[in-house]
């Protein structure tokens, strides 16, 4: 079957029921990813980046549902699949790894048993063969002494090792898409570097397309071909990583890049923080959701919400840059 993109997310709206109302956690998100690509999704907590991933996987919490939109993977509409069909998809074609590898591994089963499980369920491999395969997968994921390690339990693994085991499990059925939701946030920087190196290698050697969800702009800079910046459930900027970092076209991206201290900065200058707080998702303002914190806001911003439109090399949801105004002093490099 031929298809235009590996994954096509088309105008997804995901709502969450909360105590005092409805949160539009994902509010009209669209993007595509092709084989072999690495796409970053950045945003703060509550921006909808994880909910976007869970919507693709159809792993939303009970209180959540996709109310509108379509996800197409290799030409099949995931949002129309039955639960059984979706389950088969998750085990074989699309894998997801999470932030906390401790809660995603079952503490009472041995690592080898868990890593080999997708093969037993989806490929009907027998137990012995699945364990042999698990040894090989763990080795590929950079776990030393894999033949001994398969017999151990998750609590005998360090955080970095558990994340490697999760990656090994995710890759057991050679999926064409890997969704990694903050895979290194719970890890120390030297271990983060190891895991990112592993993800880079897998992407290069197997051509696995990767969606990397993170709040760390440095991680995006080092890993991703393209980047999506999310704010209040919306995509506010989207483009090639180099373009977005060199000349952000949305004031949120612009402010975020200026606010973070850089290791390679030479002079000590006070940081330029973003005013205010992240938005209350139950009571979002009218117009552009970043307006209350935006240093460039004009009258129109608080009234009408802009569309995500082409500005220079990327897409931006901003009246100001769409009107031809340059955000100055921005960018890096």
């Amino acid at each position, binding site marked *: 079957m031929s298809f235009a993109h590996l994954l096509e997310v088309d105008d997804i709206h995901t709502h969450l029921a909360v105590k005092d109302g409805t949160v539009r956690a994902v509010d009209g998100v669209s993007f595509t990813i092709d084989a072999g690509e690495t796409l970053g999704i950045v945003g*703060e*907590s509550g921006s909808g980046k994880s909910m976007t991933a869970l919507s693709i996987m159809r792993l939303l919490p009970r209180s959540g549902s996709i109310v509108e939109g379509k996800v197409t993977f290799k030409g099949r509409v995931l949002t129309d699949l039955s639960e059984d069909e979706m389950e088969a998809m998750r085990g074989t074609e699309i894998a997801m790894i999470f932030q906390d590898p401790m809660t995603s591994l079952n503490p009472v089963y041995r690592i080898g048993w868990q890593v080999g499980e997708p093969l037993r369920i989806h490929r009907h491999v027998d137990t012995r063969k699945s364990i042999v395969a698990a040894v090989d997968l763990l080795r590929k994921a950079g776990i*030393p002494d894999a033949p001994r390690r398969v017999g151990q339990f998750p609590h005998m693994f*360090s955080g*970095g*090792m558990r994340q490697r085991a999760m990656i090994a499990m995710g890759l057991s059925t050679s999926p064409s898409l890997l969704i990694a939701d903050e895979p290194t946030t719970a890890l*120390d*920087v*030297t*271990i*983060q*570097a*190891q895991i*990112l*190196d592993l993800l880079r290698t897998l992407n290069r050697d197997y051509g696995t397309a990767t969606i990397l969800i993170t*709040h*760390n*702009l*440095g*991680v*995006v*800079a*080092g890993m991703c071909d393209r980047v999506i910046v999310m704010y209040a459930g919306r995509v506010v900027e989207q483009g090639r*990583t*180099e373009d977005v*970092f*060199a000349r952000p076209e949305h004031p949120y991206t612009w*402010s*975020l*890049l200026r*606010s*973070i*201290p*850089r*290791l*390679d*900065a030479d002079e*000590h200058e*006070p*940081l*330029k*923080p*973003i*005013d205010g*707080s*992240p938005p209350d998702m139950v009571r979002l303002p009218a117009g552009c959701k970043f307006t209350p*914190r935006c240093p460039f806001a004009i009258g129109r911003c608080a009234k009408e919400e802009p569309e995500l439109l082409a500005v220079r090399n990327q897409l931006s949801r901003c009246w100001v840059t769409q009107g031809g105004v340059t955000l100055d002093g921005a960018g*890096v*490099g």
Partner: protein
Amino acid sequence: MAEAPARPSAQAWTPAQPLVEVRGLRTWFPVRSGVINRVVGQVRAVDGVDLDIRQGETLGLVGESGCGKSTLGRSILRLVQPTAGEVRFKGRDILRIGSRSMRRMRREMSIIFQDPFASLDPRQTVADILGEALDIHRLARSTRARKERVSELLGLVGLSGDFAGRYPHEFSGGQRQRIGIARALAVDPSFIVCDEPISALDVSIQAQIINLLEQLQDKFHLTYLFIAHDLSVVKHISDRIAVMYVGKVVEVSPARDLYRQPKHPYTGSLLSAIPIPDPRLERRRERIILKGDVASPLNPPSGCRFRTRCFKAQPRCAETEPPLETVNLGDHKAACYYPLS
């Protein structure tokens, strides 16, 4: 190891001397097991640390989780009782003074915690949270003075005095951390341990808190021990930086030198592991990817503790522990037999 100078008396201390002098500090935690709770081992969280914190400076303390940096910060404040060694605050060894003297000393030192959600009592109003320290140290003469001080403290951290009657759950993460900072300021301290004060906050809020800490430092001539695992933040805020690995300080240096010329291989790999938000630079960067995990403080390797992961390790590194010695001109010390050039 640096020779400890003769112990000066409290009267002899002058601001030219370090505000805090840590000598040979050990904080071990016993590990118990079995039916009779026998001690089967010791977690050597802090295992022989010598460190000076100078008046008015920010000393950054970095290292990975479990390296002992938080325990060191708490040991310096005597919030945990160290096993051995000295902590001299303005020349007085606070590990060996009575509880009354210690209480007086506590007014000079304070702490800001990582998690603004867990560190504020949900049943206390902001006024109670801030007033508690004032009451304990009898710093407010009257109800009115207390109220004024609370509102002054809120003003210092950029919050409205009207918030005094509210409860922690009514605030965002950034606002709660401001309350935590106001609480630390309540006793009018000269020294504050900032223990990962921004790592639980949203990225867009972190810069606000860093700037606030810097402003307060200028205003009140505060001395900070700034503990964090994020080296870019630490480099931004610190005058000097100490790097810890498995209970030891392995390198201490002015912030800029540490970044430009790291001497300890651990510092070098730590720096190279930190992603820089610049795609062009990131793709060109050479990385030192360390093997394995952090060594266990329960049973640290012989000699240099980093040798099991080190790319420069030689047989000598396993035999004796390298001392923390001056490696560059002046102020830069590292504990390594084969420092980076």
